[in-house]
């Protein structure tokens, strides 16, 4: 089971409330799908500038693995107030610790509710269904 202290998007980002901010990252499932378990297979991550505002569901960045470029999607609308600059230089962190050290951005949300997102149990079912559909 994935951490139940946060919510999930069907595109495999996670969102966690931290005070009045929403911390955003991608799940271990996303990393595994992109990289086949080889941490060196993630080659590039393009994160937005601090200060940019995003809509819910809007692409805020992109990540490239050896064989695919994928969008990163915002779980909530708001202003991006911090990015994890370490990630762009150390993509292996996404493989090693996607839940904590591997956070990508922090958003000051227009509305802090995460009720529109999946909880850990629903996300677990989502990825199980995706794998067996």
């Amino acid at each position: 089971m994935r951490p139940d202290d946060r919510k999930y998007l069907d595109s495999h980002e996670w969102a966690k409330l931290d005070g009045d901010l929403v911390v955003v990252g991608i799940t271990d499932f996303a990393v595994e799908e992109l990289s086949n378990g080889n941490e060196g297979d993630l080659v590039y991550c393009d994160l937005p500038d601090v200060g940019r505002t995003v809509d819910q569901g809007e692409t805020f960045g992109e990540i490239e693995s050896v064989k695919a470029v994928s969008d990163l999607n915002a779980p909530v609308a708001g202003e991006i107030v911090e990015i994890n600059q370490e990630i762009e230089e150390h993509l292996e962190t996404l493989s090693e610790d996607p839940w904590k050290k591997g956070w990508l951005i922090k958003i000051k949300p227009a509305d802090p509710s995460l009720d529109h997102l999946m909880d850990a149990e629903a996300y677990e079912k989502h990825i199980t269904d995706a794998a067996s559909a």
Partner: protein
Amino acid sequence: MTGAATWDIVTTWGVSPTFAMGLDEALLDAAGSRPTLRLYTWDPDALSLGYFQAFEDVPAAAEHPHVVRRVTGGGAIHHDAGELTFSIAIDADDPAYRGPVPRSYERTHGAIMAALASLGVEGARMRGDASCASDLSGTGMCFHDSTDLDICWPGESGALAKGVGTAQRRKGGRILHHGSIKLANSHLEERIATLSGVGVEADAREVGAALVRALETAFDVSIGPSEPSAELRAAGERLGARYADPAFVHRAVRARPRASSPPRPGSPS
């Protein structure tokens, strides 16, 4: 045609570099549509940069009059008369592409290798841990940088070399899988494997037909001809403009050595 599920096929021969890219984006964005295989060639010939490539990291780009940037990653490709470009636009949860990215490559590459075999190319395989004679540092070219999943075959020299380049874009539950199959050598891509290099003389249409048959068998689908709608063509023209826009082609990309270099077993080189 073989299978129950149906894919569309769109053929656009001799298209402009901007329309080549714009129509692929329109197909990627076409949520809810059937999986689409597109076969195309370019006129004039052009150089396409990978999405995250710095223009300056591709020496040939400075010399070429027609440069576009793809939405897919990887290295630069010379699209000339000796090349068939294909794309597959498909939902990410389609059985053909469901699951980890590398598995989707293995399935698609299996079909491409079957197509190559049907044309008479012998010994095509995914590179795996083998060394690849076409790997060449400093050019920024896709065909000079192989990964373990890339399709190679013994070229003119007899040494294993890369002959097919592929890359994916994943967006909004959709996938665009780009591919380039080399029919003949380009002066910008020396040492690579080509069909003519192993005595197989086939044009883009013949290779495309072989690819259709192989994909039908591999994915148990029927692939039927389809004309891009007027709306899709218009979207391709409209979206295509940005691909040759200097702001996009020369966009700032942070230089970063590929994690895969130098070569290591089981990973890209």
